[in-house]
């Protein structure tokens, strides 16, 4: 028996608050979980800065990755196995891709990638294809197996059905994170009947389709997605923490470029600051390392870096007002910019517009004009129809645009009347704070 078919003597089970148990029988999966690159995901939170708002949201990307693996395992072993449209030889590939799909995420990856112009998908591929423990395990299956896993995650694998299991508008990734994020944040929105959805999934040439009889379960899934976006992922206070985090990283990079002398050399950031990040350096960074620097930078001589780190570590976040960037509001913003400078508060770091498009989450889209593959229902007569054409509920929310912009600023500095009182009053009036 080859390594790809090797089973553990005894099935391993992980207790999991979302799926109750995660079952591992394949030796390859067990070995992948034990690699240092996979274990690193324990030190990267699934929801970045959300824990500053929902204190339970401390779950890691490792929890989520195991959850996605378990969903795919149930689909391929319990639902697809034996169906003529499904090629069971793709089973192990699907499981590995599910387990490893988030491997390249960095610490607080959304802000981190923005500031340093990185892409976690690029690092996922590098970890899978490079000189790593993960690559060593995958190569034992077959020499071309790492490339196949990488292609599935990059959505460029030839079998689109396999890709769609892990990445589509109703995929294992979303089904896990919606439920997991709801559980750990403690909100009551992200619930839907996943067991039902799994039972009505059917493999087709290019994608998974859902039997018409499961439409109401899918409606629930779309609704929970919608609710979670607005109640958790787009939460204005989480966005405030994210704004501060982004500005800390910008400031540290700026200081490095100006040859500023840090009290402790930020060696972990050097390759990022220089824009030449190697895989080895990248893997050394996790959220523990970043938070360690933020702690130290509270004692720095640079007043901006010091202040921003104090805000992040001690949760003294920016306040916000709704902001509609119409031309009159944009003129007001330019005016505010000038007043901030006069007040001695650098607007580059302390006056920030944040938009819904700056966030990494997406809505269900019916896929007009070949944008993204929509969710398809399989009707009893064999016809395939796009979900929002059959469901009034989905139609009601998927076609509607809802966008959101907020203006963030440090209210405490504007209320501090120890200096520049007149200018600060003017600012507060422009922001409608007084």
């Amino acid at each position: 028996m080859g390594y790809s078919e090797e089973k553990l003597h005894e099935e391993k089970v992980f207790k999991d608050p979302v799926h109750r148990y995660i079952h591992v029988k394949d030796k390859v999966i067990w070995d992948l979980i034990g690699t240092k690159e996979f274990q690193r995901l324990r030190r990267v939170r699934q929801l970045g800065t959300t824990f500053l708002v929902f204190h339970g949201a401390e779950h890691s990307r490792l929890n989520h990755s195991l959850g996605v693996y378990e969903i795919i395992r149930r689909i391929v072993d319990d639902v697809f196995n034996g169906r003529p449209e499904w090629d069971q030889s793709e089973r192990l590939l699907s499981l590995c891709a599910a387990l490893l799909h988030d491997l390249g995420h960095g610490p607080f990856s959304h802000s981190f990638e923005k500031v340093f112009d990185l892409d976690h998908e690029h690092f996922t591929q590098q970890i899978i294809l490079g000189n790593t423990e993960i690559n060593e395990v995958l190569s034992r299956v077959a020499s071309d197996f790492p490339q196949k896993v990488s292609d599935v995650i990059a959505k460029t694998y030839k079998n689109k059905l396999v890709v769609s299991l892990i990445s589509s508008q109703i995929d294992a990734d979303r089904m896990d994170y919606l439920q997991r994020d709801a559980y750990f944040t403690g909100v009551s929105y992200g619930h839907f009947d996943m067991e039902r959805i799994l039972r009505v999934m059917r493999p087709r040439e290019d994608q998974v389709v859902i039997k018409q009889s499961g439409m109401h379960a899918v409606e629930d899934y779309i609704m929970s997605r919608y609710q979670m976006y607005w109640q958790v992922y787009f939460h204005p206070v989480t966005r405030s923490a994210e704004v501060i985090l982004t500005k800390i990283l910008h400031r540290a990079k700026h200081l490095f470029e100006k040859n500023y002398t840090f009290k402790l050399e930020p060696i972990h950031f050097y390759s990022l600051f220089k824009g030449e990040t190697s895989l080895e350096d990248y893997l050394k960074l996790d959220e523990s390392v970043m938070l360690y620097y933020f702690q130290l930078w509270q004692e720095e001589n640079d007043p901006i870096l010091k202040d921003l780190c104090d805000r992040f570590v001690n949760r003294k976040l920016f306040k916000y007002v709704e902001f509609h960037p119409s031309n009159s509001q944009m003129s007001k913003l330019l005016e505010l910019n000038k007043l901030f400078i006069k007040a001695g508060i650098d607007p580059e770091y302390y006056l920030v517009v944040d938009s819904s498009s700056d966030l990494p989450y997406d809505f269900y889209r019916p896929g007009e004009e070949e944008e993204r593959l929509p969710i398809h229902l399989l009707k009893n007569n064999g016809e395939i129809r796009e979900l929002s054409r059959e469901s009034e509920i989905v139609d009601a929310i998927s076609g509607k645009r809802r966008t959101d912009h907020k203006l963030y600023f440090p209210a405490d500095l504007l209320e501090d009347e120890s200096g520049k009182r007149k200018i600060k009053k003017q600012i507060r009036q422009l922001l409608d704070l007084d």
Partner: protein
Amino acid sequence: MFNDHAKIIHAIALAGEISGRKKLQKMIYIAKKISFPFQEKFQFHFYGPYSEELTLRVEELCNLGYLNEAREKKSGYYQYCYTLTDSGKEFLDLYQMEMPALEPCLQDMNVQNARFLELVSTVLYFDSLPKEEVCEKVFTLKSKQKYTLEEIEEAYQYIAKLQEKAKLQ
């Protein structure tokens, strides 16, 4: 401060009118790949490189009244055309952009059809691979589009031409 939005408004102003969401996506992706500073993240989707961030940003700009989105019925589907509104033009007066080479590149792309731009963007997506492997990717991943070797060659030539244009100005 709203810079990324401003770049999209600027791009549509330079192109004049862009017919189709797919075309808009591919034009911005190609411009980004030939070194114009667009920040939107693209991933490979069913129809090639696609950015959800760009989709949402365009929606925001339509909601803000800076872009006009007109829906036209085509055979079997709707197509969306984007133009700048008067508010969009006023906005650009507030937000000057310095990307002089962008205009000829976008105008050139805008007269190509969406199918060809889909091919060009796919070739660019795999630009780290040797040409034979890129052809194989195109034939495998875009089998329904039935691209020929000649068309792929044409895409390569087109990319070289655009890169020259981007450098010249």
